[in-house]
Structures are given as C-alpha cells and as structure tokens.
C-alpha cells in the first residue's frame, strides 16, 4: 500500500511537470502566433510586396489631461502612413520600404515618457515621432541622443526639446510663439496694456511668457499684471480679480486648453469682458468648454487651420474625418508632417541608418500641412509661416 502511494505520488508529480511544460509550450505558441498576426497585420496595411518595413516609434499622451493631443498625433500619423503605403511606400536607394508605427502612451508625464520610449525601442523603432508635450519630450531627449536615433517632435515646443543634434521639431518654439503673439497684440491689435496668466510649473508656459513680455515691452506696451498658477490648479478667481483691478485691455494665457477652459469660464462668472489671447496649446478648447460664449473672440496661434481651402489640407481633413469621424487639429497635422518628413529624410539619405537620416534633415524641404517649403536648421528648428485662429460664433476661424 505504501509503495502504491509512492507510485501514485510519482505519477502525480510527473503529470504536474508535464502539465506545466505543456502550459509553457502553449504560451510560447500563443506568443508566436500573436507575433505572426501582428506581422501579418503590418503587411496588410502595406501595399508593396517587398517585405522591408521601417518602424516609427510614436510617443504621446493618449490618456490623461492632454489626451486630446496624443490621440490627434497618433491618428494624424496613421493617416500619413496609410497614404504613403497606399502610394507604394518609400523608395530608399534600390529598396522600397513600407512604414509602420508602434505608439506608446506617456500620459504627458516625464517618468511615463521614459517607459514609453524604452517600450517602442524594444519593439524595434527606427525613428521617434514624439513626444507630444514639452516636459515629456525633454525627459527623453538625452536618451534618444545616446541611442543616436532620429527624433522629430510634432509639438514639443520648449527650446530644450531639440537641444541635441538628433532632435528636430515641426512646431514653433515657445519663444518664437511668445514673440509672434506679442507682435500681434502690439502691432495688429494695437493693445498698450496686457495682463498675463501663466503656469509657473510648466516650461512651455513660462517660455512663451518670458518672450512675450520682453517683446511686448520692446514694442512699447506694458504688462500690467503677470499672474502665475501651478499644475492642477482649478481656481483662478484670485488672479482674475487682480487683473480686474488693472486697466488691462486683454489677457494673454500661454497654457493648455484645460487651463484656458477654467480661466475663461471664471472670468465670465466674474463679469469680465476682456478679450483673450492664447498660445497653440489652446487648440481643442472648444471641446472642453461648457459654453463657447466664454471664449468668443479669443485669438490663438496655430500652424494649422482645418477649414483652410488649400488642396492638401482639404484632402487631409476629408480623410481624417472619414477615418475617425472628427475634424483634425494642429497636432494631427504636425504628426502628419512628421511622417512625411521622415519619408523625405529616408529618400534624401538613401539609407535607413539613423546617422544618415539625421544628416539628411538639414537638406530636405517638405511641403507640409503646417507650412509650405519647411526647412530645418542644424539646431532642429523649422522655418515656416504662422497662422492665427479666432473663435467666432463658437467655431474656429482663420484670423487675418
């Protein structure tokens, strides 16, 4: 009987081992099929029969308070990739590449951006599209530089986003935005006295504010109030009350749309009727305000305008609308331009090596949605024109 038990237990142990082995094997097989599936999916989007794929690593916030930006970037890039692949891919020397993209969520935070970067690199990314917000972008610039990979940010506008030689951007820098808005306020709109509300814990906001205040003063204007707030603040009544006590003619808010939503709503509650000026972070603000009347007349800088009648913009807007049922914003357009810039760099370089792509960046000219004939300096800055958008009757319109 004792022997019997021993045999039984041996058998049981053996069966357990076998079971665990099969479990392992099953797992592996599953992983393999999954890999095969993703590969197949990648190929179905590719029009060419050639198997070469160039993988773009996208990073941006698809959840969190800046999710609107990240989703736009992801979708804009997807449209461009689909278009390029449908047109036969990218010809590099004697090879033809199809484009593919993996996209990782950084929630617009520094630590998540690093995880996201590592994740897309592990999946074999050959160029980086991102990050979308400045802070997250700065967090990974040194990592991308160490890896020597081409990084193009669609919308990271802080100076430091492109401090390394491998990094380029599509959007304007923060100081350039500040200067442009100050010129608009002082020259076009003729304001003499302007109040500023800015986010002191955000580089994007402080960067624009500094340049704006300097340029506005240089143009003979006066900053009558410069009020700060911090990340996560929802109450701006105190700052607005202070501004109300001045003789400001307009309020400049270099911040993201969520902050702009709170500020403009509370200004209306306080009975303030001053016009608002904003930075490009305002794009998307109509989606978060509960009453568009609060931002009626506001003007902000944007490199892209969806109702632009020009042919390439109209086609992009139609495709985007068909694919996602929404009107693209500047982030989608920036990302679309990033993909076409990577394509241009690949063709110019005649190679997919990171070093060659980076070298090609200063030699290319891209006719993008956010500007015709965009060229880049070795510092990573784009040369292109600017557009202003005004909210009229609760809709975005081009301000001229």
């Amino acid at each position: 009987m004792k022997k019997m038990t021993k045999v039984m237990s041996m058998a049981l142990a053996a069966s357990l081992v076998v079971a665990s082995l099969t479990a392992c094997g099953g797992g592996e097989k599953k992983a393999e099929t999954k890999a095969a599936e993703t590969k197949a999916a990648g190929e179905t989007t590719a029009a060419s029969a050639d198997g070469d794929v160039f993988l773009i690593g996208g990073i941006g916030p698809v959840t969190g308070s800046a999710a609107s930006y990240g989703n736009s970037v992801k979708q804009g890039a997807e449209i461009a990739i689909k278009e390029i692949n449908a047109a036969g891919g990218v010809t590099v020397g004697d090879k033809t590449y199809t484009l593919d993209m993996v996209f990782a969520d950084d929630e617009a935070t520094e630590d998540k951006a690093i995880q996201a970067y590592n994740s897309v690199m592990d999946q074999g990314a050959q160029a980086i599209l991102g990050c979308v917000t400045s802070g997250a972008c700065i967090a990974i610039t040194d990592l991308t530089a160490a890896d020597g990979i081409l990084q193009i940010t669609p919308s990271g506008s802080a100076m430091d986003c492109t401090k390394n030689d491998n990094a380029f951007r599509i959007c304007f820098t923060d100081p350039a935005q500040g200067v442009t808005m100050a010129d608009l306020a002082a020259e076009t709109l003729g304001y003499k006295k302007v109040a500023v509300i800015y986010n002191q814990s955000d580089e994007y906001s402080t960067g624009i504010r500094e340049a704006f205040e300097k340029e506005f003063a240089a143009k003979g204007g006066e900053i009558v109030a410069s009020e700060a707030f911090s990340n996560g603040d929802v109450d701006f009544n105190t700052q607005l009350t202070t501004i109300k006590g001045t003789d400001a003619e307009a309020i400049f808010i270099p911040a993201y749309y969520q902050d702009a939503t709170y500020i403009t709503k509370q200004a209306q509650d306080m009975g303030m009727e001053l016009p608002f000026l904003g930075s490009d972070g305002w794009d998307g603000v109509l989606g978060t305000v509960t009453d568009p009347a609060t931002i009626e007349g506001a003007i902000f800088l944007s490199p892209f305008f969806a109702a632009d009648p020009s042919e390439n913009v109209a086609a992009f807007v139609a495709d985007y609308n068909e694919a996602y049922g929404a009107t693209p914003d500047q982030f989608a357009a920036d990302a679309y331009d990033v993909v076409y810039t990577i394509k241009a760099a690949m063709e110019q370089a005649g190679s997919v090596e990171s070093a060659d792509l980076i070298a090609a960046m200063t030699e290319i000219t891209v006719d993008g949605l956010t500007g015709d004939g965009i060229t880049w300096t070795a510092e990573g800055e784009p040369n292109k024109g600017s557009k202003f958008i005004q909210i009229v009757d609760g809709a975005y319109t081009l301000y001229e």
Partner: protein
Amino acid sequence: MSLINNLVEQLINGLRTGSIYALIALGYTMVYGIAKMINFAHGDIIMVGAYALYVFAALLGLPVPVCILLTIIVCAVLGITVERIAYKPLRNAPSLAVLITAIGVSYFLQNVALIIFKATPIPFGSVIKVPSIKIGGIHISGITIVTLIVTVIAMAILTWFINKTRAGSAMRAVSEDKGAAALMGINVNKTISMTFAIGSALAAVAGILFICQYESLSPTLGALPGIKAFVAAVLGGIGSIPGAMLGGIVLGIIESLSKAYISTQLADAIVFGVLVVVLLVKPSGLLGKMKAEKV
C-alpha cells in the same frame, strides 16, 4: 475706491474657497473626533459626489433637486460602507494601520473612477444656474452666493444637530469616551456610522458646489481640496467642529490674499507657512483643546 473693491472681491474669493474647505474639513474633524482616525479617503468622496451628480444630471437627465438629493444619499451610503468594510475591523488596531487603510481606500476610489470614467476630464456644465449680482462696483457670481448660503445653512444645521438632538449628544459622548458611552447605553457602532454618513454627506455638498464652480470632472479632482481641507482641520484644531469651520475659512482667505497681494508663486508656501507657525505657537490648533493625558 477700486482698491477697496478689489480687496472686497478678493475676500469674497477667499470666503468661497474657504467655505468649500470648511465643508470638507468638517468631515475630517468629525471622524477624527469620534473614531480617532484621519480618513484620507474623505477627499475622494468629493470626487464620487461630483461624478454621481454628473451621472444623475447629465446621463440620466433627472430633475436637479432629485439629482442633488441622490448624490448626497450615494455619498452618505458610501461613507458608511467604507467605514464598515475598511475601518471597523481595524477599530482596535494601531492607528498607523488605519491610516494606511484610509490611503488604500483613497486610491481604490480614484482607480475605480479611472476605470469607469477614464482619465480624460469630462466637461460638465453647472446644474446650479443663478445669475450674478452687482453691488456698487463689486461683482459676485451666482455660484459664489449659492456656495456661501449653502455653507452657512449646513453649518447651522450641523451645530444644532450636535448640540440639541439626542443623536448629537450621543456623538459628543462617544467622542469624549467610547467605553463610558457604551456603558450608558449608547450604540457606539451606530453612532460611528452616523458620523461617517454626515461627514460624507457634507463632502457630497462640497463636491456638488465644487463641480458647479469648475465644470470639469477628473478622477483626482478631490485630492487637492481634500489635502487643503485636512490642513484647514488641523489649523482649526482637529476634532473641533467650530475649529474646522474657522480653519477652512481662514485658510481660504489667507490663500486668496497672499495670491493677490504678495505673490501668486508663493501662495502655497505662505499657506503652509502659516500652518507651521500656528502649530508651533498652539500645537492643538486655533480652537483645539489640549487634553491632558491621564496616566
């Protein structure tokens, strides 16, 4: 004149934020007084209240008074449930264990909201529509008036309840001495549940006022007001109900005035600096009673 107008408006701003802090601080202080624990999940009850209002008003389209009533009930029931499930089993455990549990409950509530409603902030128009008024050159928004009136009423009812009713006496007795109260025939468990219910109902009111003012829902919206209200409760003397009211309003006014007249950058530093100074001079807070430890 405009300088005085400005000062008055800043004081009103301070009163309004202070009122919301006070409503939340009452929950902290009542629970501390009775259960001798700091309920760090209290701030998240505000968030639940805000989302509940959104569900009832925007998704189900119920009439506003019904929505407000249901929101208060949801929060009160949630407060009792949290106490029953998470805190009651630990009533005789070291206070550190209860504190950690409270932080756990806070994260739990935030993450449940995150799963259900996602992280993207939801715009939600105010359900309280009161026109703003203008007295002299001073402009007061409708929601400010409502906030101030509701806070005064809530505090008056609470003070009356605690001092004049049998249930209120029971609460005071339990906070004095749990054991003796039980011997006098007071149902301690029921009294503690009631305290959590009242505290959470006040948090629901704060949540409703908060969301009608700021019009944007996110799973972490209760965190910052929760912390500020906790500071207010400590400033006023934790465990003291008039202290929580005073602490909340003082905190709101200091915050508003230092933002307005000293520096927007340093406002938070000044607020917490005041707390440090008060606690150095009077460790039990403004209205807190120093209890001699009997050995």
